[in-house]
C-alpha cells in the first residue's frame, strides 16, 4: 500500500465534520418553525450522511458507499418533492404555515 491509497486527512475528521453538519441540521429542525427551513435542515442532514458514506468509501476504497450515497440523493429528492407538496397543501388549506398548528394527523 503506497500513500496514494490513504486519505489526506484522517477519517475521524471527515466523520467529525459530518457529525457537526448533522447536528446543525437537527438544530434547524428543532429550533425553526418555518417548514421550508425545516425541510432545508433535513437536506443538511441527508448531506451529512452522504459525506460520511463517501469518506468511508474512500477510506476503504469500496464502491458501496457511492451506491448508498446515490440512493440517499434519490430519496432526498423524493422527500423534498413530497415535503414541499405537503407544505403547499397545508398553506392553501390553513393560510398559515406554522408547523405547531398542523395537527391533522395528531393521535
Amino acid at each position: 500500500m503506497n500513500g496514494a491509497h490513504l486519505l489526506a486527512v484522517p477519517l475521524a475528521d471527515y466523520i467529525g465534520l459530518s457529525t457537526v453538519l448533522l447536528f446543525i441540521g437537527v438544530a434547524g429542525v428543532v429550533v425553526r418553525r418555518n417548514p421550508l427551513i425545516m425541510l432545508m435542515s433535513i437536506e443538511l442532514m441527508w448531506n451529512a450522511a452522504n459525506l460520511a458514506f463517501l469518506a468511508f468509501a474512500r477510506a476503504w476504497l469500496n464502491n458501496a458507499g457511492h451506491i448508498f450515497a446515490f440512493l440517499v440523493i434519490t430519496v432526498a429528492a423524493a422527500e423534498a418533492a413530497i415535503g414541499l407538496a405537503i407544505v403547499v397543501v397545508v398553506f392553501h388549506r390553513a393560510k398559515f404555515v406554522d408547523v405547531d398548528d398542523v395537527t391533522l394527523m395528531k393521535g
Partner: protein
Amino acid sequence: MIVFWLLALALVASAVFVITAKKPVYSVVGLLANFVALAIMYLTLSAEFLAVIQIIVYSGAILILFVFVIALLSSGVAPFTLGPDRLPVAAAGGTIAAVLALALVVFGIAQRPPQITPIAGGAPPGPVGAAGAFGSVADFGNALFTTNLLPFEITALILMVAVIGVILLAGDSGPSIRQRLLRGRREPIVKDPDFEAAVRRGERPAERTP
C-alpha cells in the same frame, strides 16, 4: 489538508447560516453554498460522479423547487410564522444536549483512530477524471449497473411513487381532475376579503372550513 479545513469551515458556516437566516430565500442561498462546498469535498474524496450529481440534483433540482415554493407561498397575504414562541421552555435542555453532543464529537476526533487500510481488489485511486480510477464515472456505473442493479431499480420505483404522491397532494383539492378536465376549465380561486384583512391587521383568524 488545507482544502479540507477551508471546505469544512465553509460547510459549517453556510449550514449555520441556513438555520439562522430570517427569510427562507436567504436559507436557500446558504444551502446553495453548502451544496457547492460539499461537491468540492466529494471531489477531494475522489467521488467525481457523486460531485456532479450533487450539483445537478441538489443545486439544480431541489433548490429550484424550494425557490418555486417560496415564490408561490410568499405571493399570498399571510406571513410564514406567527404565534407565541414556545421554544424558551426547551432551550435549556437543548443547550445541554448540544454541548454534550459537541463534547462527544471533539472527544471522538481527539481519539485519533488508526488509519484504515483499504481493502485490496477494488479499482485503484487516481486523479479525478482518470479513466478506471476509483470513483470515476466508469467505476461507479459498473458498480451501479452490475452488482447493485436491484437497488437502482428500486430507486426508480421510489421516484415514481414520489411523483404520483406529489400529483395527488398538490394537484387537486376541489373536484376531481377528471371532472375538471370534462368541464374544460379550472375553478376560480375564491378570495376571502375578511380573512385577508384580519391577517393584515396581525390577527390570527380561525381556519375557514370550506
